[in-house]
């Protein structure tokens, strides 16, 4: 079993945005991993490892698209426990979502991977498209917005609980497949691989890299590929022609008592 996880770095979402020249100025931003991509790696690691044993059920490969100089963007994921890395050396600002998806699909094919796990959304661009696009390009089944994953090793299939508007949909997909993960995938019992005891409760959230993990990460191989190695033409047919701050809400008022609140809601806002 080979699991590919694609990751992206984003400007720290806790920093305030700097608007400049009709765009956003990220030159002074601190770059951090997209949270959903950390959840994706955590999911892959929980599938791959056997808690209480030393066996490894899958190889976990972390894939980043960005300049080769940003090798360190993969280091954290390798330190968490991924086995090796791949960087596709390209300027992400000059790639549209369609091209990024083609690059990921090409790496998946080149590696003959069985499963792509990706975050359902990047917190900066919020396109929410890449995993579904990759599944379409690969012509494999997809399970989007996963809150739970159960791996049936014998049947080579995953049973995925998907967060949909009406509740949770349970979808079974044969491998190879694409899974995009939602927040609740990192709850203590969200991922089951059939080998780790089903009663095992993980610590909530993506794991922190251990000191040993950080040391080992430096020795893990990271391959660098060019888009041309993958037969993908780079380019974009999307263009950002402006960025603006949303209109601010007008300043509200503090009320002192419930009675005053009720009065305002009935007489001023006339909403109840």
């Amino acid at each position, binding site marked *: 079993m080979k699991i590919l996880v694609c990751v992206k770095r984003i400007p720290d979402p806790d920093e305030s945005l700097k608007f400049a020249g009709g765009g956003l100025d990220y030159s002074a931003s601190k770059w951090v991993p997209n949270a959903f991509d950390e959840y994706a790696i955590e999911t892959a690691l929980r599938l791959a490892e056997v808690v209480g044993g030393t066996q490894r059920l899958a190889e976990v490969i972390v894939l980043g698209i960005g300049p080769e100089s940003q090798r360190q963007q993969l280091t954290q994921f390798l330190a968490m426990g991924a086995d090796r890395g791949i960087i596709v050396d390209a300027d992400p600002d000059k790639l549209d979502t369609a091209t990024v998806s083609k690059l990921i699909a090409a790496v998946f094919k080149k590696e003959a991977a069985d499963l792509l796990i990706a975050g359902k959304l990047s917190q*900066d661009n919020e396109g929410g498209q890449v995993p579904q696009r990759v599944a379409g390009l690969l012509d494999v089944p997809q399970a989007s917005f996963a809150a739970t994953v159960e791996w049936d090793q014998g049947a080579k299939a995953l049973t995925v609980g998907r967060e949909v508007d009406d509740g949770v949909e349970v979808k079974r997909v044969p491998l190879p497949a694409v899974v995009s993960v939602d927040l609740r995938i990192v709850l203590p019992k969200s991922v089951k691989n059939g080998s780790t005891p089903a009663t095992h409760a993980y610590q909530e959230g993506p794991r922190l890299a251990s000191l040993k993990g950080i040391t080992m990460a430096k020795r893990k191989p990271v391959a660098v590929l060019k888009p041309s190695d993958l037969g993908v033409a780079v380019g974009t047919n999307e263009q950002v022609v402006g960025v603006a701050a949303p209109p601010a809400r007008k300043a509200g008022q503090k009320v002192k008592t419930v009675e005053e609140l009720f009065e305002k809601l009935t007489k001023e806002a006339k909403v109840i």
Partner: protein
Amino acid sequence: MSKVLVILETAGGQIRPHCLPGITCAAEIARATGKPLHLLVLGAQPDAAAQAIAAAGYGAAAVHTLAGPTLEPFTAEAWADAIIHAARTLGASVIGGTASSTLRDALPRAAAVLDAPLVSEVVKVKSGDTFVRPISAGRALQDQKVNAGTFFFTARGTEFEHAQPTGAVPVQAVAAAAANTRGAVVQGVQKTESSRPQLTEAKVIVSGGRGMREGANFKLLEQLTDLLGGALGASRAATDAGMVPADLQVGQTGKIVAPELYFAVAISGAIQHLAGMKGSKTIVAINKDAEAPIFQVADYGLVAKWEEAVPRLVELIKARKGA
């Protein structure tokens, strides 16, 4: 002439109301591009719903049906096949609909196969090829231009009016496509049963946060919710703590809502929560912490403990209703 095609979801022989804003967005794109608006209904037996939709018309030139046994229950795989087939057969060059979990799942897949861009979560149509969409948890609005003969879009449901009936239009069947699920099987949907309106449809929403401490305390919020005929919501902190089901979550990673009246009770107001509700018309915040960021977006802020404020508010509303 190439068409603007809206993909609709139906239930019980009717359009699902959350699809109506997507039609409005598509109608604006149709106007801006001079292309006619067409609607598509997919399903095992889409005819009854298509007839009901065609009777309302919604400003479209026609309603198309595409029937197939693999189109129910929904899978992104079979739906993408059907959407691609319909787009090619009908000559559609703009394809989209409301950004529901269904279309967020299926449309990017179809767009990839057609090598077309997709503009997601459109909040405003600037021209036939330029759209406004929120990024970074709604902290910025991006104008995105697409340079492609064919493109897809999803529309944020809270940002467009519901399409209104305009008069009957014809129903036409698209010849069946080979739609298959690639071996995927939907085993069921665990629905959160509720007699309340859907979060994305409700005029009033009462949401609780971490400060509610435990699920049982949401009973009090339910009282307020039901008095106002609203829907119950929650912050991520509350759903993660298991106080209420995950599908009640409002925020960047949950539902995006914009009701007439939004109560944020014991919610601090993290950016990711604000991203899901700051389009609400009137926001009321009740929080015991006067410094909570939620007060910065609230029209009316009350620094108080929910244990005291909510029961009193319920009393006052009951008294008014009784009067």
